[in-house]
Structure formats: C-alpha cells, structure tokens
C-alpha cells in the first residue's frame, strides 16, 4: 500500500518481515485482474455479437460459433441468424478486440519508452502518419476508402512517420524522451494538417468515407481482416513481454537503466520500431481510433501496478474489453446510424479517465514526478 500521509513506524525491528508469510504481498485486485478481464472479454464478445438490428440470444451466439468451429452440429437457429453471427458480427467484434489490445499495448510501451504519461500512438505522430498515408493513397488510386490502398498507405505512412521521428529526435546517437515527444507532437500536427488538406480538396462524395475512416471504425470487417492484426498482436506482445524488465528499468531513468545492464537507447529504438509496426497495422484495419492507447494503460496501472510483466498482458485484455464495448455502443446508441468508434472511445473514455485521475493520482503512477 502506498503510504500516503502516514508513514510506517520507522523503528521496526531490523529483520522483521512484513505481515503474513513475509513474502511479496499483492493486492487481490492485482492478482485477479487478468482472469477477470479475460472472463469479461468473453462475456462482452458474446453480448456484443447478440446486439444489433436483429437481436441474437447469447445461447444462439455460442451455438453458432461452436458449430462453425466444428465443436458441435447444427442447432435450433435460423440460417439468417447464423449468417448474421458468423459472417457479420463475429469478424467485427473480434477485430474490435484485437485492435483494442494492440492500441493498449502500444500505449503502455510508449508511456515507458518516453517516460511520459501522455504518450500514446498519436503523440509520437505514428498514427497521424499512418492516417495521412492511407488517405493519400486512397485518393491517388481513386478507389473506395478500403482495401489494399488503405492498408498499404497506412503501413507506408507509419513507416515514414517513424523514420522521420528517428531522424529528428536523434542527437549524438541518443534518443532522448523529451526530444521524441517534441518531435512526435510536431510531426503529428504536420501530418494531421496534410490529411485535412487532402480531405478538403478531394472529391466531395469521398469526404464522408474518409472522415469516417479517420475517426476509426471496425464496421467493414470480414474474416480475412483478422489475420494480420492477430499475428501482429501475438508477435508484438511476445516481443514486448520479453523486454518487460528492461521497460521497468527504463521507467526509472536512463542512468539507472544503464546501471542495471539495460541499453536505454537500444531498447528505446527497438520498442519504437515494434510499436510503429503495431500502430500501422491497427490504423490499416480500423482507422484512427484514439484514446484507447492513452487511457487503458493508466487504468491498468492503477490496479496492477507499474511492473510491466503484469501490466502488459492486463492492458491488452483491458484494451480488448474496452473497444468491444465501445463498438457495441457505437452501433447501437444512434441506431440505425453508426457512430465512428473513435467518437465513442473519446466521449466515454475522457470523462471516465478524468474522474479516475482526480480520484487516484493516475499521472503520478504513470511516471511523472509530481513535485
């Protein structure tokens, strides 16, 4: 427990161990967080699949999914229900879960890498770069706002943005957190301005589609869209988890990290590259969904603490739950109209986050010195 205000007795007998068996005490919340979130995720997925213009009972949803995965035979549901569940809603809901996990993972890593609680894929300009790339390629190729130009443009844009970030933030072979944030914010504004220019000078009947993409959506998902983000999330999470101790050390400062045998600059560069790829993938499949990468890691940290071995998996699960719920809201609250999911994440996430921050001092836990 953080001893706020009350300090523990300073004359405890030397060698006295803490309560219980004297070993590491974790709060019940920290231990339960990941299993609870995984249960919540499964529930949210089933419920979210059932919600929509045609409501599907949870039993039917589970039945259809199990049937299609080959666990059991055809049950007492209609073909229409099966098509709605399997062809339309499963891809969409799973994509929301994958993208939520990706964005939360990226946010958690970036907050450690630049030692700044405000870091997320947007702050470093990578999301905006991916957005600009996607919009530019879609307009240049004259296609609809989807498909190969969109994904390729997003990938190229995020790669270019990352290169620019490295070149601008590097000085005497070092990547310092402050320069990364400053360069990233400037690039972010630059790319957003470029995107706005392209949108406003483009064909009027495309503007709506592009705006929709820029605000983020998983509405167009089909099953083939799931493979790339699934692979990215799996490999990305493994890579980053393998560096969990290095990220812990990095949060305590470069000098300490070096003393603990962590090459601060190398880890920082490596993590920036990984997160850029993950961001590019997320933007390519779902557009510019904001706020997940910022908020979810903070909320997770409040529950499980700052250590990355626990934080990273929990943030992924939390991000997935958050985005599945946000997508459910996005397609129901103004039905039959669909809101872009980014609007929902911000409208719901911002007030909730501010409330939590006021209550719990999130900024301090995020790594800023409050003095």
């Amino acid at each position: 427990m953080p001893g706020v205000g009350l300090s523990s007795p300073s004359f405890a007998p030397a060698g006295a161990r803490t309560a219980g068996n004297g070993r590491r005490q974790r709060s019940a919340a920290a231990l339960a967080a990941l299993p609870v979130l995984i249960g919540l995720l499964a529930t949210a997925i089933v419920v979210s699949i059932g919600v929509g213009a045609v409501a599907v009972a949870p039993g039917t949803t589970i039945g259809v999914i199990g049937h299609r995965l080959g666990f059991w035979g055809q049950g007492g549901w209609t073909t229409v229900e099966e098509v709605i569940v399997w062809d339309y809603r499963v891809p969409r809901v799973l994509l929301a879960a994958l993208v939520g996990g990706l964005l939360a993972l990226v946010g958690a890593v970036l907050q450690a890498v630049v030692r700044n609680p405000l870091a997320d894929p947007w702050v470093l300009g990578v999301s905006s770069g991916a957005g600009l790339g996607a919009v530019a390629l879609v307009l240049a190729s004259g296609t609809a706002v989807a498909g190969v130009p969109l994904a390729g443009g997003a990938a190229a844009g995020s790669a270019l943005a990352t290169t620019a970030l490295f070149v601008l933030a590097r000085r005497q072979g070092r990547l310092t957190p402050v320069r990364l944030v400053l360069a990233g914010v400037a690039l972010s504004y630059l790319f957003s301005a470029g995107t706005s220019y392209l949108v406003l000078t483009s064909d009027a009947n495309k503007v709506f589609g592009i705006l929709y993409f820029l605000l983020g959506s998983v509405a167009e998902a089909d099953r083939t869209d799931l493979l790339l983000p699934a692979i990215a999330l799996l490999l990305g999470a493994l890579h980053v988890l393998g560096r969990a101790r290095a990220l812990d050390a990095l949060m305590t400062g470069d000098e300490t990290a070096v003393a603990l045998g962590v090459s601060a600059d190398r880890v920082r560069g490596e993590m920036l590259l990984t997160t850029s790829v993950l961001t590019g993938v997320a933007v390519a499949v779902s557009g510019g969904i904001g706020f997940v990468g910022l908020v979810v890691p903070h909320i997770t940290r409040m529950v499980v603490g700052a250590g990355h071995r626990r934080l990273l998996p929990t943030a992924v699960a939390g991000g997935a739950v958050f985005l599945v719920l946000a997508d459910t809201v996005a397609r129901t609250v103004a039905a039959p109209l669909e809101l872009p999911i980014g609007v929902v994440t911000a409208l719901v996430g911002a007030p909730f986050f501010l409330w939590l921050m006021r209550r719990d001092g999130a900024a301090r836990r995020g790594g800023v010195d409050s003095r």
Partner: protein
Amino acid sequence: MRVQVEGVTVRIGAAELLRDVELVVPAGAVVGLVGPNGSGKSTLLRTVYRSLRPQVGVVRLGDDDVWSLSARGSATRVAVVAQDPGVDVEFSVLDTVLMGRTPHKRPFAGDSSEDLDRAYSALARVDATHLADRSTPSLSGGERQRVLLARALTQATPVLVLDEPTNHLDVCHQLDLLALVRELGITVVVALHDLNLAQTYCDLVTVLSAGKVVAAGAPEHVLTPKLLREVFRLDCHRVLHPVTGRTLLALDRLQ
C-alpha cells in the same frame, strides 16, 4: 575485482570534464574520490559503470575494457548507487530492490525465490525491511538512499560504485552505510564530500580538482593541511580523537 582507469579524458561539447585521469582500485579495496563541486567525481564514476564513454583512455573491470563488455555483462560486474535517483514511479520498495536482479534474468523469467531471498537480505542489511511494501516515491531521501543501496547489493556484483551515498542520510545511517560498505569485502569506488568519512572509511583516497587527479594514496598522506588549503580552500588542523586516537580533520574557512 580490480578496477583500473587508464589515461581517461572525457569531453562533452567544448568542456573537458576529465583530463588524463589514472585510478587504480585494488580488488577488495574501498577507494574514495574527493574533490570540490564540479571536479569530475561523478563523471569519473560514470566512465566506470559504462554510462559515459571516454574519448581517450580505457577503463578496465578485471582484465576487460568496460566497452568490450555488453551492457548486461558490465552490470553483472558493477552495481551503482547514483546521485540522480531517477523519475518517481510507483514501484513498491520490494520491486525497486528486485530490479537489481535485472542483469541476471533471462527474458520472460519471473522472480525466483533466490531473487526474493537476496532482496530481503539486502533490505535487512540496510535496515529497511519494514519499508518493503511502501511505494518508493513515498520514501524520505534517506530511506530512498538505503533502498537504492539495497538494490545495488541485490545486483550481487564484485564492484560497487557509490556517488555521494551519504547524501540525505542522518549521521547514524551515514556511519552505518560506510561500515556496511567496508564489511562487504568487495571492490568499492565511492565519491564523498565529507573528508572525515573519507579518511576514516577509505583504504585509499584520490583527490580530483578541475578534472585532474592532484593526489592519490593513503588518506593520512593525501588529506594534508596543505592540499586541503590548495584544493578545497579550507583551513585544516589534524586533531586526535580523545578516546580512539584516530586522526580527525578540524576544518574551517580560510582566514
């Protein structure tokens, strides 16, 4: 493990922070670095723990050039208590101390019971067991200094680098800390401001002034009234402790 600094020069921009510095720390010895503010003590220490690469010269840990070692390899030989405690992150004290195991751990490895044993025994040695569950930013300066020493001890290295370790400590804990450092039996390089502590607890003392070594050797031969006047601008009288018979430095401003 022996530490040897050979002809090290460090420049940052136009400033020359160290010039042609030599320092030999025999295995198992406690060597003090003293010198006025800005004399280059911290810079010299940073070259030893592979944080700063000298433009000229070599730093050896044992037989190896520090820069021929990996970051991890060097961190299994040298542990550090630096002056800048780093950004305050809400790690518990126990987690902070366990970070000392970082260079010994493979990716994905959790904390073993050996890691926990080392962390708890290090906390006990610095009289901080009762702080284990506190959050690190909530500690006082002195408590934090002891916890950071515990982290360095948990790193289990043959060489320990301490930059002003007595900062923020009350007098009792200053003496405790230096006595503990002596008991460890490992090679220690320690920057100190308190000349009496340097004289009492160090086997050898090296005096830096404006980035150069101006004297080195046994404390009673090095910390002479003449040197203290020239380097530190201090008036010094050597007096004998009435009970222990040890020499003490009675210091005053130059008149």
